[in-house]
C-alpha cells in the first residue's frame, strides 16, 4: 500500500510535467541583445522587415494543433522600479509550429487584439528607445481557449552608444614597439571589442583613409571583454617598426535589434620609437630646425617650436615659396634666416596661421 501511495504521489508530481511535455511553449531571445529599436517591438499587423529577436518553440499534442497566443509586454524604466504592462495582445488561431518574432503580424499569424497603455507608450516614444528592462510573457492557448503553457523572458537594455574613447596611447605619443598599452572607456552592453590599426603614410592622409588602406597591421582583432590590451602582443598581419606612425581604433560590438553593430572610438595616432628611423632624421628633432627655432624664438610660434623639439616637424614636411610661387629650398631658407639673425631689423613682418 505504501508503495502504491508513493507511486501515486510520484505520478501526480509528474502529471503536470507529463501534461507540459505534451503541450509546451519556450520563448528564446537572441543573446547579448543590448538595444532595440522601437520599430522592432512595435505591435501591429502589416509591418514588414521586423527583426528576428525572439523565437517561440511550440510543442503540442497532436503536432500542429490549432492554437493562439496571448502576450504581455511589461516594462520597468529603471532598475529599481516595478514592471508595468505597456501592451498585451492575442493572435489569431494558427497551427502550432516554431515561429520567429518577425512572423507575428506579417505571416498567417495576425494580431487579433492589441491593447496598450497610452501613457507608457508615449513615455517610451519620448525616450526614443526602450530603456531599463522589458519582460515578455507569451501564453499558448488551444483553439477552444484552454491554457496550454507559457514562458517569460526578461530583456535588459543597456543601450550602448558611441561613447567609446581611447585613453591610451595618447594622441601623438611615442611608444616602444614592444609595449603599446591600449586602454579605453568601457561600453555597457558591448559583447566584445575589436582593434584595428594601420600605418599613417603621411601627414596629409586622413585617419579614416589610413585605417582603410592597404593590409591593416591589426584587422579587427577581437580582444574579448577586456578594456586594456598590449597591442604588441596581438598577432599582427604586418610588422611595425621604429619610426612608423600608427593609427589605432577600438570598436565595441553590440547587438542592436538582433544584428551586430560596431561603435567606433575616435582614432588615435602614435609613433614607434627607437631604431633606424631615429637616425634617418625623420623622427628625432632635426638639428637645423632646432637651430632656427633657438635663434628666432619669436619668429617661430610656440606650437611650431614644440613640434620641432619633439621631432614632429621635419624639413621634408615643410614647403617653402616666395611671392612669385618659386620653391625655396630648405638650405636657402637657412641662409635667409642666418642673414636675418645678424640684423633682425631686416625682418619686417611675420604671421603664423595654425591649421
Amino acid at each position, binding site marked *: 500500500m505504501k508503495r502504491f501511495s508513493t507511486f501515486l504521489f510520484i505520478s501526480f508530481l509528474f502529471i503536470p510535467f507529463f501534461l507540459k511535455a505534451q503541450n509546451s511553449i519556450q520563448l528564446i531571445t537572441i543573446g547579448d541583445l543590448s538595444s532595440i529599436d522601437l520599430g522592432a517591438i512595435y505591435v501591429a*499587423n*502589416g509591418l514588414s*522587415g521586423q527583426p528576428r529577436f525572439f523565437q517561440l518553440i511550440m510543442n503540442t499534442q497532436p503536432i500542429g494543433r490549432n492554437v493562439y497566443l496571448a502576450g504581455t509586454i511589461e516594462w520597468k524604466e529603471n532598475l529599481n522600479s516595478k514592471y508595468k504592462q505597456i501592451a498585451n495582445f492575442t493572435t489569431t488561431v494558427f497551427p502550432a509550429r516554431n515561429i520567429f518574432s518577425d512572423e507575428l503580424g506579417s505571416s498567417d499569424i495576425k494580431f487579433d487584439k492589441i491593447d496598450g497603455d497610452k501613457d507608457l507608450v508615449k513615455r517610451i516614444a*519620448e525616450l526614443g528607445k526602450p530603456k531599463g528592462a522589458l519582460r515578455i510573457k507569451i501564453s499558448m492557448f488551444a483553439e477552444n481557449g484552454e491554457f496550454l503553457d507559457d514562458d517569460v523572458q526578461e530583456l535588459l537594455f543597456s543601450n550602448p552608444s558611441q561613447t567609446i574613447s581611447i*585613453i591610451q596611447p595618447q594622441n601623438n605619443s611615442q611608444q616602444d614597439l614592444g609595449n603599446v598599452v591600449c586602454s579605453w572607456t568601457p561600453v555597457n552592453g558591448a559583447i566584445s571589442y575589436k582593434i584595428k590599426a594601420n600605418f599613417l603614410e603621411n601627414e596629409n592622409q586622413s*585617419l579614416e583613409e589610413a585605417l582603410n588602406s592597404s593590409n591593416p597591421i591589426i584587422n579587427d582583432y577581437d580582444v574579448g571583454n577586456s578594456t586594456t590590451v598590449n597591442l604588441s602582443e596581438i598577432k599582427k598581419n604586418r610588422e611595425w617598426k621604429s619610426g612608423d606612425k600608427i593609427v589605432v581604433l577600438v570598436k565595441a560590438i553590440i547587438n542592436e535589434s538582433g544584428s551586430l553593430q560596431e561603435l567606433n572610438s575616435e582614432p588615435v595616432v602614435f609613433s614607434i620609437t627607437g631604431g633606424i628611423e631615429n637616425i634617418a*632624421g625623420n623622427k628625432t628633432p632635426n638639428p637645423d630646425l632646432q637651430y632656427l627655432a633657438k635663434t628666432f624664438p619669436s619668429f617661430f610660434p610656440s606650437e611650431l617650436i614644440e613640434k620641432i623639439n619633439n621631432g614632429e616637424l621635419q624639413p621634408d614636411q615643410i614647403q617653402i615659396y616666395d611671392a612669385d610661387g618659386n620653391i625655396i629650398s630648405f638650405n636657402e631658407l637657412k641662409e635667409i634666416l642666418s642673414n636675418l639673425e645678424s640684423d633682425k631689423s631686416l625682418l619686417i613682418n611675420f604671421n603664423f596661421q595654425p591649421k
Partner: protein
Amino acid sequence: MKKIFSLLIIITLSIDTFAQVSNYVSDVKIGNAKERSSIAINAELFNVENISQISIAYKPFGETQFKNVEMLIAGNSSSGNIPAEDVIPPYIEYYLLIELKDGSKQTYPIGIEQGVSPLQISIAGKTSRDKEIIILSPEEGEIFSENELLISISFVRASENVDINKTKIFLNNFDITSSAIFDQDLITITSNELKEKFSGNSRLLEVQVFDKDGKLYYSTKRTFQVVSQQIAKSVEEQFKYAGSLKAEARNENTNSNEIFYKNIGADFNSSYKDWKINANAYLTSEEKDNLQPYNRYTLSIQNGDWLSLKVGDAYPRFPNLIVDGKRVRGVTGAINFGFFNIQTTYGEIVRSVEGRLIEKYNADNVPLASDVISINQAKYNAPFGKVNFGIYKRKLFAVRPSFGSGENFQLGFSYLHGIDDINSIEFGTRPKENVVVGSDLTLAFDNKNILFTSQAAFSLINKDISTGTLSDAQIDSIFTSNKDLNVDPADVKNIRDMIDKFITVNQYLGPWNPQKLSSLGAETALNLNYFNNSIRASYIYRGNEYQSFGQSYLRTDVKGINLVDRIRMLDNKLFISFGYESLQDNLQNTKLSTTNYTTLSASVSYFPRTNFPNITIGYNKFSNKNDLNTKDFQYGKYAIDDVTNRIFVQLSYDVYALVKHSTSFSFTTSSRDDNSQQNSDSKFTNVSLNVNSFWNRDLSSVLGLVYNTSEIVGYPFDYFSIYVGAKYLMLEDKLTLSGTISPSFGDFQRQSFEFVANYLIMQNFSVAFQTRIYRLPGKSTNSVIGFSTRYNI
C-alpha cells in the same frame, strides 16, 4: 671720307633698334647713352620658356674683345646694364647672346658668328644741362612693382631760361604729360596718376624740356621695368609642369603569411596662368573586389582660390559634424566668391562587397542567431541560411553654401544625404539611409586672435530601408488596428509623402523623439590669443541618435566642456599648459546609468637655449565613473569605475665630446585602477635613453636603451631592449646607407636587423632598397624586403 664717316656716326642717333628676324627677341630698347653713365638695355622676348640665359656682349670703342654682362629675365623681358666705365664716345658695339635650354645658342641680331655686324650705340658726351635737369626716379634699369612706380624730375638746378611748365614726358612714346603733377621745381607722376595701361614690362621714359621761347632745351631718355606684385606674369603665362613616378615591390612575411606587394604611383602637376591641373593615380596589387578600394585616382582642376573641381577620389572637408576625412569617389567641387561660396560632393563612399552563404537551414531546424537570415528558397533549396554579411554600396551627397570668406566672418548651411544601395549585394542586413542638415558660424577679430566657431546639425537615420517606405495599406493597417494611438492614417500618409522626398519612411526611421534633441549635434568654441596665452574653451553636445554617414568616428551621446590654456613665458623658453575636460553620457536617459568622463592634463616644457637640458614634465588623469554599485548582484556588472594616472618626464640635451651627441631620456609611468567587475587593472613603466651622435658630415649613429615593465590584468610583462644603428652618406651624398640591430630580452623576445639604402642615380631619379628581419624566438621570423624607385619629371 673721314667727314662722311663721322657724319654717319653722328647721324646714327637712333637708339631704337630696327626689327631683326629672331625667334626670341622682338624688340630692344636702349637707355640713355651718355659718357660715363651706365646704359640700360631692355629686350622684349618670345618663347621665354626655352631660354636659359641672355647676356649682352659689348665692345667699347677702341677695344678688340667683346665683354659680357648677364641680363636679368623677368616675365617676357630681360634687362642688363653696360657699366659706366665702359661707356665712352663715340660708340659701343653690342649684340645679345641667347643660350637655350637645349644647349644651343643664338645671337641677336642673328648670324653674328657668320659675320653679321653687331649693333651700335652712339655715346653722347655729358653736358652741363645733364646737371640742371635731374631725373630722381627712375634710375636707369630700375625695376618697379606696379603700385610703386614713381617718375620724378627735379628742376632745382635748372636755368632760369627753362620753362618747367612746357616740359613734355613720354612713356613708351606715349605722351603722359597730362598725368604729371607740377610742383614748383619738381614734376612727379606716380602709379596713382598714371591712367594709361602699357603692355609688357619694359618702359622707355623720354623727357623733353623747353625754354621760355618754346625751343627744345634738353632731352633725355631712361629705361626701366614694371612688374606685377603678385605671381610674376612670366610664371602665370608659362605652361609649367612637373610630375613624379614611383614604383615599389615589397615582400612581407609575417607569421608565416607571405604577401608580395606591388604598387605604382604617378603624380602630374601642371599650371598655365591661374589654372592648375593635377592628376594622380595609385595602383596596388592589394586591390581586390572583396575589399574596399585601395587604388586611388584623382584629377583636379583649380583656378586661383575661387574654383576647385576634383573627379575621382577626394577627401572633402565640411564642418566636422557633417563630413570629415571620408574618401568620396565621385565629383567634389567648390566655388568661392568670398561673399558667397558653395562646396559640394557626390559619390560612393563604400564599395559593395558581396556576402557569403555558409550554411543552409530548413524551417524546422533554423536557429535563432544574428547571422541567420531568410534566403532565396528557389535558388538555394532552403529557406534560411547562415551568412557572412556583405557590405552595401553607399552613396553620399553633401552641399554647403556659405556667406563670407572666413577671414572674419562666415555663415554656412550644410545638407547631407547618404543611402545604401539595397540591390548592390544579396547577403546583407539592415541597409541604412541618413539625412543631416546643419549650420556653422565663424567670427574672427583682431587678426584671428579672437576666434569664435559654432556649428549645429540635426540628423535623421533610417536603420533598415530594405522594405522601403510604408505603403498606404500598411499605414491603414497599423493605425487602424491600433486605435489607442488616435492617429488619422490620412495625416500619416501626408507626412510620409513629405518626408519621403528626403528619406525612406518606415518604422525604422528615427529618432522618434527629436524634440528631446536626441539627434542633435552641436559644438561651440572660443579661442583667445593674447599676452602669450592661447586659451580655448569649448562645449559639445551630441545626442545619442546623432549620426552622419560622412563622419564615422564622432563620439556621440556626450555633452560637456573642454578647457585648454597654453602659456608662453620667458621669451618662448617656458611653456605651460593646462587642460580640463568633463563629459557625461546618457543625454536622453536611455542607459542604465550615467557615466562621467573627466580628463585632467598639465605639462611644463622648458627650452633654455643655453647649456642646460630641455625638459618636459607632464601629468594626465582620466577617470570614468557611473552610479551603479559594483557589488550589486544583478546589475553590478554594468558599474564603471576606473581611474588612470600617467606621469611623463622627457629630457634632451646636446653633449659635446669630440663630436655632438644629441641625447634624450624619457620616463613614463601609468597606472589604471579599475574598480568595476571587469577589473582591467594595468600599469606600466617605460624608461628609455637615446643618443644620436654626429661623427662627421657623412656619418651619424644611434644608441638606444629601453626598459619596460608592465602588468595588464595581473599578467606581468617585462623586457629590456637595445638598439644600435648608423647612417652613412657616400658618393657625394648620392648614396645613403642606414642599418640597425636591436635585440630584446625578457618577456618580449625579438631580434631585429634593418638595412636601408637610398641611391640618387640622377638628379631626378632615385632608387631605394630595404631589408628588415624580425626574429621572434619560438614563434616566427618575419621579414620585409623591398625595392622602390622614384622618377621626377
